[in-house]
């Protein structure tokens, strides 16, 4: 098991390093000058140069790359061009919104999807199966920003039960925060639940055809018992894979939902930083994200080994 871990950690670091290179190169060829964005139309050329000097944009490429990677290792992520605030502080203020939201959406999606998948699998080809499948078809097919808009229209504008968006801030207490998270969580969770339910169902159907299920039933275990005690765990591998992908998507792929509910999350920070050419924020944020996603993939691999003993000797799935 230890070599399995060592090997994975090494490839982890290698991938991160490659990621820093890729991101740096991509941002180098990004047209547009941050100084110009900040100083606007009437700025004179000398003020632009003064600012560029201040931001250290005139140093040669390699120097900038090396100093960035050095900063990354020491954890000092530098100062944002636009917000003039340490990048780490800026990202932290956005993580406390995106991370809980991703966690909530993930839990809600799993709590809905796994039972639905099991129900669909256990009454295969019966009305219940068809019902669950059509829910999942609809869930996948609806564009999530359209669904978010409908939610706001119903709950915030007409019923006026929930705020139409915005983030009350953790210091305003749990209840207001949960209220502002409720609609975005539903808007994020349902499409993911739709996908997860389908995957759970097909994985379960696959496993239910295996011989050991028949052995279990031959031991006198009921259909449902065989499904929950034997089939589910074997079906977890594909399910966990999808959940891993979904969680990394939920971390920063929710730009659209953050837009509709005007939540100050990571997605919008990246979108804003790119359009304002706040390259320091973009660079560090994307690396953080890549690190997070690779970490999630690593944990999924560990989960594989935990779920399926055959994987513990280090063979890859």
């Amino acid at each position, binding site marked *: 098991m230890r070599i399995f871990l060592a090997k994975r950690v090494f490839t982890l670091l290698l991938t991160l390093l490659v990621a820093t290179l890729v991101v740096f190169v991509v941002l180098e060829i990004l047209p547009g*000058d941050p100084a110009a964005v*900040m100083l*606007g139309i009437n700025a004179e050329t000398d003020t632009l140069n003064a600012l560029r000097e201040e931001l250290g944009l005139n140093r040669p490429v390699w120097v900038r790359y090396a100093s960035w990677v050095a900063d990354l290792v020491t954890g000092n992520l530098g100062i944002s061009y636009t*917000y003039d605030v340490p990048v780490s502080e800026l990202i932290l203020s956005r993580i406390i919104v995106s991370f809980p939201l991703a966690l909530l959406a993930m839990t809600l999606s799993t709590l809905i999807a796994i039972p639905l998948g099991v129900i669909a699998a256990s009454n295969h080809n019966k009305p219940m199966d068809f019902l669950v499948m059509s829910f999942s078809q609809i869930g996948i097919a609806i564009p999530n920003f359209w669904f978010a808009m409908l939610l706001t229209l119903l709950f915030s504008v007409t019923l006026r039960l929930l705020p139409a*968006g915005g983030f009350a801030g953790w210091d305003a207490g749990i209840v207001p925060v949960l*209220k502002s998270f409720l609609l975005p969580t539903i808007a994020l969770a349902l499409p993911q639940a739709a996908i997860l339910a389908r995957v759970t169902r097909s994985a379960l159907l696959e496993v239910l055809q295996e011989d050991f299920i028949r052995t279990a039933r031959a031991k006198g275990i009921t259909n449902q018992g065989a499904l929950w005690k034997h089939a589910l765990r074997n079906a977890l591998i594909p399910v966990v894979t999808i959940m891993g992908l979904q969680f990394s998507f939920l971390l920063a792929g929710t730009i659209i939902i953050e837009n509709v509910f005007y939540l*100050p999350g990571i997605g919008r920070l990246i979108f804003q930083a790119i359009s304002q050419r706040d390259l320091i924020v973009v660079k560090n944020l994307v690396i953080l994200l890549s690190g997070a996603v690779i970490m999630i993939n690593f944990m999924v691999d560990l989960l594989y080994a935990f779920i399926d003993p055959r994987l513990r000797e280090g063979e890859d799935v």
Partner: protein
Amino acid sequence: MSKIKTIVTLIVLSLGIAINASSVMAAKDTLNLGMVLEPTHLDPTAGAAASIDEVVYANIFEGLTRIDKNGAVKPGLASSWTVSEDKKTYTFNLQKGVSFHDGASFEANDVVFSLNRARGEGSVNAQKALFKPIESVTSKDSHTVVVTLTQPTGSFLFNMGWGDAIIVDKASAEKNKSNPIGTGPFKFLKWVKGDRIVMVRNDAYWGTAAKLKTATIKIIPDPAAAVSAMMAGDIDGFANFPAPESLAQFKSDPRFTVVIGSTEGETILSTNNQRGPFKNLKVRQAVAHALDRKAIIDGAMFGYGTPIGTHFAPHHPAYVDLIATHPYDLEKSKQLLAEAGYPDGFKGVIKLPPPSYARRGGEIVASQLRKIGINLEIIPVEWAQWLDQVFKKRDYDLTIVSHTEPMDIGIYARKDYYFAYDSPKFQALMQKLDATVATDARYKILGDAQRLISAECVNGFMFQLAKHGVWNKNIRGLWENSPVQANDLTEVYWVD
């Protein structure tokens, strides 16, 4: 089964009531004002974004003079001033007993520091040109400052009222970007990036205290989210509502009042006067005749906006109505194009920055010009690319942008400006304008300037951007127009 149902409905109902009750009580002395663009930071002396001034101007920071809601120059930190005969020396008498929010006292040396900082070499002030005429700034005593100019500048007092000319304290100046310390009626409390900026009443304010206890600026970039936020009652109002198409609905809703004012934003079809066919005056005239201003305003701004024939704000007394010089006339337009040597039109490129007036206006202008044979390829660009490609490298044929700086007709005198318009006649007019101080003489020169750029069709002058004010009907004191980029909350209060 029915027992469970009744319990569930009970819970939902009580939940509903609890939520609604809490939001009604707290409305009295706090204000939630919506804003579309989040300022990049809060130091107006180090950034051009209008959003910075819209938060801090007159609320947190104050300058020597102050622009009021009608665009007139009023005393600010300078309670009064005298001007020498040769109009080159200004002596400002400063308010007494004024202190910065961090307790530091406000004296003449703060003014000297602020003005020298703005015009010095390392200055990162976006409007550095405003301070160019200053020759020296000296403090005669603790509350009097003498400013000498290299040449008389009629608009100097107005310029000192700009957001970029506010007075800062040397000690806190560097930190203003994230923790603004000014002398205004509101103190900065906190800024949750991407979400909201909170200001509280400065009880030690030297002038009449603000009526609001706390004012929160809520950032809502997405127009649809803005509509929902207003409808759901999360926000009390928008100084300038982003979605003109939904104003009709707010008008019909008893909870809100809609106040349409004007801004300093001349929305023009900027033309690259040195590029291809547009070098030729006849082509530019053809374009002018092909623009149906009413259709553009109805289509892009849903009827909100006043047509303009030149680069000047219609509500300003010096405005000259020149729409008649190039009326909408497709036949004349085609004829002019033929005379210019393009009988069956030509291809061109129009680059559009993000705002909806540009993206929607661009689509309409493109379809209108298509009628006379000018086929435009539409390329939407982010602000960063617009500044780089259009503004700096002049790599464009046409673009649409709204110039919201006040009294900015002077940009036509700058040879390197992105219009690529170099007319010694106009540059001479501008020099004469700077030298004159008497208002009616200035208005006459401004009139000639307007007639010249309209006759030469430097750009396609379309319409003045309107200010779509939407707020709760019980709010008083918000500005109707915005003569300068600001949301002055000093006189805002609730009635009911």
